[in-house]
């Protein structure tokens, strides 16, 4: 419970209508995109960095835990307020403050919806490449806090490759600015990158300086169909060895293909073992076309039974609609899904998928596998019904085995979703105790009282 005098203070800062605590509000801010939930005591929605700072000063004084939240599309329960206390809702901070065309740098607030930002810069011929599947329902602040990736990472990198600087608020209310518009910058430790992917445990990110690129003018998308999973994996390396870096190489296994097809009726080959969706893009049409020809040739040489290049923009959009709908369309099959995002070295992809299928059979739970084959980031999704305690127990065993396998193959627990709380039981396996202790020590420097998103990313010290 937050004391009435404190609620009053908060209301004075952000306005009465932006402090919520009705039972319905507490429920609405109790969940994210996982099946986890826990109600906060209060939700506060500040309008700018200054208000965030003032709110946090009060929370610090009153020892109120703070959980920062964007649109609640996280997949690791990193924004669930298990600690109770305050949800700091940043969606009202949705202004694009500046688009500096000369330096190709944008200054945005944390609550800007990533897709809105992309559309705005694209109207100016600019390009912000990170493209998590949740692009329409996630915010820049959330993307930064989780260092979101997406299909285009293969060529363009992840969110952290585009963040030049941050404005953030420390738990005690102090406002810090990291980095800046200067591209090269080794003045001091790189706090910008430290905050990237910190899942709201170190500071509340309120503004960001984002690097932009010229928008590629041309893109070609193809679908390569395989009867054998290994051939699909071989294709990925073969393409890269040819000197072509496609924007994306996305993989879907047979279960994924069938699930999407059932829902979208796109005419996908339901008898294939795997498909790759490959996109080349660039500013010169001839180069893009030539690269796509190479991709198609290499795919065939590696054993693709069919390579279809989208002829129209509509066909291209259909292919991507299929890919983007994978994750949610899985829910048509079972009430719950647990979407993991292990990352393995590229060469280990076929072995990883084979082992996942064996785990699926062993525990009798459907697991579909799709993901970013170009960078080895796979999304095994376990489908289940959480109301069945036995099934839930098996899900936990399956997760443990998948994580064990990923680490064994030289990979790691999560490529882009984050640790949150769901992956913490396996953290030691991936990082070791010394590294965890080091991270807990860093947390202590930023947040001596342990009030900011407590218990997330790594266990509380």
């Amino acid at each position: 419970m937050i004391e009435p005098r404190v609620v009053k203070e908060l209301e004075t800062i952000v306005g009465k209508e932006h402090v919520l605590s009705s039972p319905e509000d507490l429920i609405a801010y109790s969940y994210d995109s996982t099946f986890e939930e826990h109600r906060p005591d209060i939700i506060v929605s500040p309008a700018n960095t200054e208000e965030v700072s003032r709110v946090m000063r009060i929370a610090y004084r009153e020892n109120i835990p703070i959980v920062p939240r964007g649109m609640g599309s996280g997949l690791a329960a990193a924004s669930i307020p298990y600690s109770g206390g305050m949800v700091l809702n940043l969606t009202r901070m949705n202004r694009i403050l500046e688009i500096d065309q000369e330096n190709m740098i944008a200054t945005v607030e944390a609550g800007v919806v990533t897709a809105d930002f992309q559309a705005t810069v694209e109207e100016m011929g600019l390009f912000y490449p990170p493209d998590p599947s949740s692009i329409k329902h996630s915010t820049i602040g959330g993307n930064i806090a989780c260092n979101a990736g997406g299909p285009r990472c293969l060529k363009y990198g992840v969110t952290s490759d585009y963040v030049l600087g941050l404005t953030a608020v420390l738990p005690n209310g102090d406002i810090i600015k990291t980095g800046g518009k200067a591209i090269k910058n080794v003045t001091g430790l790189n706090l910008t990158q430290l905050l990237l992917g910190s899942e709201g445990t170190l500071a509340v990110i309120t503004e960001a300086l984002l690097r932009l690129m010229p928008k590629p003018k041309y893109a070609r998308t193809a679908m390569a169909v395989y009867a054998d999973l290994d051939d699909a994996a071989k294709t990925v390396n073969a393409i890269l060895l040819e000197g072509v870096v496609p924007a994306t190489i996305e993989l879907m296994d047979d279960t994924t293909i069938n699930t999407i097809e059932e829902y979208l009726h796109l005419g996908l080959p339901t008898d294939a073992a795997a498909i790759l969706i490959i996109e080349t893009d660039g500013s010169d049409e001839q180069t893009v076309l030539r690269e796509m020809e190479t991709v198609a040739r290499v795919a065939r040489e590696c054993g693709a039974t069919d390579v279809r290049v989208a002829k129209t923009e509509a066909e291209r959009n259909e292919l991507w609609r299929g890919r983007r709908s994978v994750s949610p369309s899985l829910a048509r099959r079972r009430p719950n899904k647990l979407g993991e995002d292990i990352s393995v070295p590229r060469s280990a992809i076929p072995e990883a998928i084979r082992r996942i299928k064996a785990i699926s059979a062993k525990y009798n739970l459907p697991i579909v596998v799709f993901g970013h084959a170009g960078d080895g980031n796979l999304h095994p999704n376990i489908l289940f019904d959480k109301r069945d305690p036995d099934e839930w127990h098996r899900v936990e065993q399956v997760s443990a085995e998948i994580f064990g396998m990923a680490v064994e193959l030289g990979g790691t627990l999560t490529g882009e979703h984050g640790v949150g709380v769901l992956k913490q039981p396996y953290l030691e396996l991936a990082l070791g105790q010394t590294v965890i202790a080091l991270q807990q020590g860093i947390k202590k420097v930023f947040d001596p009282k342990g009030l900011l998103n407590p218990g997330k990313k790594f266990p509380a010290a």
Partner: protein
Amino acid sequence: MAQHRRDDIPHLPTEEQYLNCIRCGLCLSACPIYRETLRETDGPRAHVVLTRKYAEGEIDISPEFVDLMYKCLDCEACNAICPVGIRPADLAMEMRQVIHKTQPQPWLKKPIFHGYFPHPLIQELSVLPLLLYQRLGLQALARKLGILKLLPRQLQDMEHMVPKLPARPLRQVLPEEVPPAGEEKHRVAFFLGCFQSTIFAQESEASVRVMARNGCRVFTPKQVKCCGMPAAGYGDIDLVKSLARFNIDLFLPLNPDVIVTDCATCGSTLKHYGEILKDDPAYAEKAALFSSRVRDISEFLMSIDIRPPKGEVRARVTYHDPCHLVRAQKVRKQPRDLLQLIPGVEFVEMKESDWCCGSAGTQILTHYHNSLAVNRRKMENVRATGADIVATGCPGCQMQLNMGSNHYNVNVRVVHPIQLLEEAYRREEAEIAADDPSTGD
């Protein structure tokens, strides 16, 4: 946590309707209300979660819960975008039925829904004060003197919603049977909506004329009652059913090839009669037959061999998709095709043409600030087209766009597409008449 379903509650949504929601949040991106308030509680995902928690006995219905379900515009954008197939807007509508059955209702609700909407004559009398206000020149005077500025902004906005009212309700004017010009090709029963009869009479008059010009014999039953949408919107499903039964009994004996309406909202409800009465043994079959014959005016005209008009309407025209047409009836292409039949029309698409305009019937009364905020996005998209005319086939949208064009100062004329078609035919007829010496004075 309690996990026992309240199966004794009437109209409780089924488990299948919410169970598989994975809370991905994609619906938030499409919800016009959430995109304005940016409050999770207002969005579709919260509606699904709250419905589930109520159904499972974890929470009770509070005044806030009621307000949340009534805040929904039922624009169905969330239904359309959900990859899992959850229909959050439907859940909000069904929870209104639960609320209607289980909660004490505001005293005004009964007189409005039972005493007003089902009775055309009472409706017609109710617009009389407004009519006199317009006819006696009071409106012009009030506008000129700025008297309206003294009223709250909300009343000012509502003042701009309605066009010049017809002298008499169309229901009383329109012949019960209009013969086709030339050979009879289609037998049409015309469903005259309440708003069309009392406010947008010109439009329905145009609909009947255009159909008659194109080989239709048009019957317009005068006893027609409200389609039921307002009652459905306020959770009174029993009243919707009784209106549906009445209208079915009125229309089917005419044995029409099609039942046509030029109101998107009426059309979406009429097409649902089959679903609404599927458990009524006496009416299930008749209702299904009735619904299968219902067509929106643009849907019907583009399905027949329509003769394009020769008269011109020189204007830059954009089109706003009514939620009840584009999503509820999946009619997207036909109104655009219809507009482009008209010589002189320069058609231009607006951005987010299928984004709700914020009307949703009575939101301007019940949730004024949300309604206005949603409307701003629409009006800015209209403004950006530089169009002289925005066409839309729904009286609710038309009123809201009229209001918005005034409130946000967008200089645009709001019409039903059929009106432009009628204007083109009239110009053609006037030109023929002018060329024909035998008809000269």
